[in-house]
């Protein structure tokens, strides 16, 4: 029998200015003021601002162009279409950390949860103080945050969009007397389809795909999807453009694409940006390129209630529990489809069937941990490979977080809880609040922790000192002319909140810098 995909996603709505592999019938050479590699939070924002400022912008994106009508609840099909390597990307370490990156026009903003938070003031102060970054403190960044929030329509959810899983999470926090706040999300009347991670099927989530990309195109930017950039070209210490290839349907290289530009921007994320710079021969005198990888390790647990929850009916992460923010822990309800939930449990056979029979009674809750260790990205065989070792301190913090989250969900009425790690030789399961102490009394083998992330940061960090940082405060690579990084690689430290808005604000600030200094980039 031959495996046959379900009907292909429709691609019949493509705006002017977007070119795909179907449009490139031979080797292609383009000239532009600016070439941007990547169309996610950083790339699309920068493209829109620079295009509006009058520059001729070309954006290259490795993934495909999909439109809102292409997004469905068929989770694994969406993962195959929208995630790099089908989501099977992993930082090597103990435990390995699975990470996910969007690979589509709009980048990871197409598949993120839509949380839109400003960089915490204490983090900006730290960057100012420790990295020597001027003009980065909260009062300096205020106009950029405000501008981004206007563009991507950052708001609280309409009350009718909040589902029962989120209400139970809030009920638990309220019962414990813990601080819980409504999430700020980039959405226009999101109705709670709970499909954020597989592409928003209503168009409510203001991903780059439906906000900054159309704006960039409106102001004349050109966007080429299905183009994989191999390297940045150079003339001495000056970046001069990029060379890549069209990505054929089978993933192989097609026609060659060359872009010559006065400013080259790498905006392909904290895994691929350092790899692209490295394989293009742009080392950093700091020795920090690819290092300083932080990734907000996430774990999730599953709470099973007696009542119907139907977690897929209602918005993803309507609330955040902020009680332990100062300890670097955030909690939220993060419903996931049955297929993804099943694959992350240790159950199988009849046991799996019995567990999943209660799928409609489950609350999946996740936690974000502001990490203290750093890893690195290396080119291995021409491809980036991440390495990251969860520190004992952070592993203990995740255990502590699971204990707190379990207490909270039991307080909301949960009957049992599946943990993201084993307790001794057994699968981690708690049968009541009195069981929570087992998290501390029984050994938790680190290798059994199921750690995931979507927040990779820090691998081409900003800083005023060229011997300690890869780029300056605007993302311009030290000791190289006309080469910029514009994504979460720039973060000198983890930020403890969802990174999208920080990336977009930094991109806006970088655009302002470029447009304010036309002679430097002409």
């Amino acid at each position: 029998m031959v495996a046959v995909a379900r009907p292909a996603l429709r691609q019949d709505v493509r705006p002017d200015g977007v070119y795909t592999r179907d449009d490139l019938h031979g080797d292609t050479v383009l000239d532009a003021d600016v070439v941007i590699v990547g169309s996610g939070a950083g790339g699309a924002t920068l493209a829109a601002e620079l295009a509006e400022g009058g520059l001729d912008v070309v954006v290259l994106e490795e993934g495909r162009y999909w439109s809102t009508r292409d997004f469905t609840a068929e989770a694994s099909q969406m993962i195959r279409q929208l995630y790099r390597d089908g989501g099977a990307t992993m930082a090597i370490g103990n435990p390995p950390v699975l990470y996910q990156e969007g690979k589509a026009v709009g980048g990871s903003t197409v598949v993120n949860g839509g949380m839109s938070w400003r960089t915490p003031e204490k983090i900006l102060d730290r960057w100012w103080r420790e990295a020597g970054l001027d003009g980065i403190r909260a009062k300096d960044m205020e106009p950029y945050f405000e501008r981004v929030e206007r563009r991507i329509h950052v708001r609280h959810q309409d009350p009718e969009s909040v589902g029962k899983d989120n209400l139970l999470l809030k009920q638990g926090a309220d019962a414990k007397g813990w601080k819980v706040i409504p999430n700020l999300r980039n959405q226009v009347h999101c109705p709670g389809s709970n499909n954020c991670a597989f592409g928003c099927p209503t168009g409510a989530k203001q991903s780059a795909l439906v906000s900054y990309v159309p704006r960039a195109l409106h102001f004349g930017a050109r966007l080429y999807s299905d183009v994989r950039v191999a390297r940045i070209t150079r003339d001495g210490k000056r970046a001069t453009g990029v060379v890549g290839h069209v990505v054929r349907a089978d993933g192989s290289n097609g026609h060659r694409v060359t872009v010559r530009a006065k400013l080259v921007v790498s905006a392909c994320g904290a895994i691929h940006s350092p790899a692209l710079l490295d394989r293009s021969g742009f080392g950093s005198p700091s020795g920090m390129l690819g290092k300083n990888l932080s990734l907000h390790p996430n774990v999730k647990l599953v709470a099973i209630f007696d009542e119907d929850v139907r977690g897929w009916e209602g918005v993803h992460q309507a609330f955040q529990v902020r009680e332990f923010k100062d300890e670097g822990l955030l909690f939220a309800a993060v419903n996931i489809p049955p297929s993804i939930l099943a694959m992350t449990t240790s159950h199988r056979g009849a046991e799996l069937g019995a567990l999943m029979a209660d799928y409609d009674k489950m609350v999946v809750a996740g936690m974000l941990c502001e990490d203290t260790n750093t890893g690195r990205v290396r080119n291995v065989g021409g491809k980036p490979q991440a390495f990251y070792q969860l520190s004992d301190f952070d592993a203990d913090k995740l255990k502590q977080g699971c204990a707190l989250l379990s207490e909270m969900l039991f307080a909301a009425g949960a009957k049992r809880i599946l943990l993201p790690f084993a307790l001794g030789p057994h699968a981690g399961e708690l049968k009541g609040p009195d069981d929570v102490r087992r998290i501390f009394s029984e050994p938790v083998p680190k290798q059994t922790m199921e750690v995931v992330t979507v927040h990779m940061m820090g691998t081409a960090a900003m800083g005023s000192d060229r011997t300690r940082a890869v780029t300056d405060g605007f993302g311009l690579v030290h000791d190289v002319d006309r080469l910029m990084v514009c994504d979460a690689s720039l973060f000198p430290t983890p930020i403890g909140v969802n990174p999208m808005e920080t990336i977009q604000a930094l991109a806006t600030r970088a655009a302002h810098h470029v447009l304010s200094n036309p002679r430097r980039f002409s």
Partner: protein
Amino acid sequence: MSDYQHSPATRRILTSLVPVICPPEAAELGITDAIVDHVGLTMGVLPAAFRAGFVLGLRTYDLGALAFPPARGRRAHRLPPELADRYYESWLHGPTPIHRQLAIAIGQLLKLAHYEQPAAQERLGYRPAAWIEQVKRRRLEVYSADIQRHAQSLIEPDPLPGIAPHARSSKKGAA
């Protein structure tokens, strides 16, 4: 996405693992072939080296049963259910991380595939498409004015402070 397709040997091994990993309903619902097909779709988007390693691992798993005394010289795909279960457990708690990781990966791919089958989702009462259609329609009915207003704002000029919009240079290059 590659045009990966299971070889007959890979298909045999995966088919034999469905009752070990998936709930008994896989047989009741007649979705075993569909599950194995779905694993193929997932493997098609995995990095080539990962995919090759996984296929090699499956072959090793199958042949490794020859050295599993209770199997009495049979390959894994020929084992009766109880022995197949014990043999899989022996890998899940195997002597090296490679044994354990392969067993986990097999389980993950098959469990994902099982619960992506419409029949399995229906049995859970999981009908997200109907929910999405319902809320999408309601959103457009109630909030269309706000939606239009924001869409319009996305293409209105709003230059950065101190930056005068100017005529952009003409598009260059050839596609």
